[in-house]
């Protein structure tokens, strides 16, 4: 531990000697979601981006892990007060707090991930998860032999309905008669971290005839993938590339690059290009994607790959539009 600190200090010292001459001083910070930074999913993806930034630049990032709503606002304000900027706020639940902190510290810069608040010093990064979900849904429909595919969300909230809705559209785009099952693991934040419950829900979907299941459920998805492997079915990973978890079982992963968002925000500040406002990251920006690597190569035929990439190109080109559930809170497309 002490050794670590020492190395960091030396590294930081070296950086300040060499790099800081050319680039602007940044004092970055991040406030994680209440789930904590080691949640094996969303927050951890941000953490990996943060880590990568530190490794690349030698600049350490101040981290705060709040345990309740009051601490979120408290942490944001305190970071702003100490001169941290930009401050990345992870997750939709920090919106109110970011709004309050941005008003209290108009000179500080905030980057909010997955949500939008209309403040002059806030950069809002949202992901068009429906686009990536559409692609994996299409792939699921191509792969399915039973004509039934499944979607498992951690809980019944709009953010996750976006995934389910995009997935369904993609599947129906390939096969208009396909049957798409929707299930939820739980009703609290704990549903994002309950692999055994995830496994149970997956089992019930497989038993109802589904042969490909897409889980948007944080670390609960690991249980879904495990169950698919046990039952000889297929699963689709989420957020990070999870193909490696069960090669031959994970058909693909819907990658949502939240870590990239944090990294970009810091880097932009460093380069003096950080701008407030609205940043939407979809297929075109590389914010979401489908994952193809050596672990799922055997599952995806060249024909399927070509079709998915064609759809991706169509979406990027604007020829194919994917409905955003949150635009009207319905899934009518």
């Amino acid at each position, binding site marked *: 531990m002490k050794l670590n600190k020492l190395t960091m200090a030396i590294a930081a010292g070296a950086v300040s000697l060499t790099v800081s001459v050319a680039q602007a001083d940044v004092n970055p910070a991040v406030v994680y979601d209440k789930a904590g930074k080691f949640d094996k999913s969303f927050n951890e993806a941000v953490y990996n981006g943060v880590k990568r930034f530190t490794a690349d630049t030698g600049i350490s990032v101040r981290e705060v892990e709040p345990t309740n709503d009051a601490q979120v606002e408290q942490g944001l304000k305190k970071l702003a007060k100490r001169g941290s900027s930009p401050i990345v706020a992870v997750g939709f639940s920090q919106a109110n707090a970011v709004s309050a902190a941005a008003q209290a510290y108009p000179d500080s810069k905030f980057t909010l991930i997955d949500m939008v608040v209309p403040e002059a010093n806030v950069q809002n990064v949202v992901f068009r998860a429906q686009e990536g979900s559409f692609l994996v849904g299409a792939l699921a429909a191509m792969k399915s032999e039973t004509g039934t595919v499944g979607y498992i969300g951690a809980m019944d909230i709009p953010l996750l309905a976006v995934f389910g809705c995009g997935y369904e559209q993609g599947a129906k785009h390939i096969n208009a008669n396909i049957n798409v099952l929707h299930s939820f693991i739980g*009703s*609290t934040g704990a549903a994002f971290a309950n692999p055994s419950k995830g496994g149970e829900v997956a089992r019930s979907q497989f038993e109802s005839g589904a042969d490909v299941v897409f889980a948007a459920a944080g670390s609960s998805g690991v249980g879904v993938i495990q169950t698919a492997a046990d039952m000889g079915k297929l699963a689709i990973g989420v957020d990070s590339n999870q193909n490696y978890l069960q090669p031959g079982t994970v058909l693909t992963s819907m990658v949502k690059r939240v870590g990239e968002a944090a990294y970009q925000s810091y880097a932009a500040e460093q380069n003096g290009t950080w701008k407030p406002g609205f940043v939407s990251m979809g297929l075109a920006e590389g914010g979401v994607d489908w994952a193809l690597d050596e672990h799922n190569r055997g599952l995806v035929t060249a024909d399927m790959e070509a079709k998915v990439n064609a759809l991706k190109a169509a979406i990027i080109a604007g020829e194919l539009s994917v409905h955003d559930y949150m635009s009207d809170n319905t899934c009518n497309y």
Partner: protein
Amino acid sequence: MNRENRITWINRLLLPVLNVLTAFAVTAVVFWLIDVNPLEAAEILLYGAFGYEEGIGYTIYYTTNFIFTGLAVAVAFHAGLFNIGGEGQAYIGGLGAGLAIFMLDPTLGAWLFIPASIIGALLFGALWALIPAYLQAYRGSHIVITTIMFNFLAASLMVYLMVHVLREMGQMTPQSELFPTNAWMPFVHDVAAGMGYSIEASPLNLSVLLALVCAVAVWFFLWQTRWGYAIRATGKNSTAAVYGGIKPKRVIIVAMCISGALAGLVSINELVGYQHRLVMDFHLGYGFGGIAVALMGRNHPVGIIVAALLFGTLYQGGAELAFEMSGVSRDIVVVMQGLVILFCGALEYMYRPWLIRTLAPVAQQISAAGVTV
């Protein structure tokens, strides 16, 4: 001082203090093991909790929640019931407060809104406790099982309502629209500013006064009224209570409803006082924390206030610690709370035989002196 008084004194004061100190000593060892200087950590913790106005505000703000849930657990406990459902009752209490506010015309004055939200929180919290109470009294379902199940039911119900019914249009977060400003429980810093004092802003609001009023009311109810007598008699010895003409079923219902109502008031501090809208999971941790607070506070309002302050300090000071020291993760706060609960709860009487033995000769001298004087 006779033997009984001496033991009471040891039980009430000396033991909890010793237990808390032991918990801190063990925490210090844990800090030392992870390369954190315990003294420095203690300084940061205490400074964070009491060193500046904002910190004090946060500490008392958390304390307020723990007073409500601690009192809730204590009232049920005096009736011999273990109410683990404080979480769910607080959550549903929030629904009651929110509905009361949304049902009223937003132009009405605070004098109407605040009492209405309090009544809403009380009623809904009580209602959420009433069902397990009924099942215990008339169907024999164990209250521990039913209240814990009702925590899950509350979570599911609130998710459904927040996502599908109460969510503000166009909002991704499952949260309601903002309460009208008239309905906000005033912040202490605003009240102080109104009186000409300037203090740092914090979430601390006038709910803390409500918590203190509740503590006095609980004391009065339990020890100064016939209903409190009936509750305590049932809790201490239900057979004797039946003999005394007390109806245990009624006692279960009454005690649980009061308990649930008190837990429901957490939402006044959290929602009406600070977040100013219905949000998800505002209650997490306070219901269960209340059990530890009641346990440490010996189920007496004065003890509960003291124990709640300790927990509020750990919450705020611990957050400060995690913020200031990179080697300390936020989980260390949970470890500290766990140790406090372990030593004050599970190992409550660890020092008792030793203390009584050590203090016996001293007390004898005192009592002998008392006789001769």
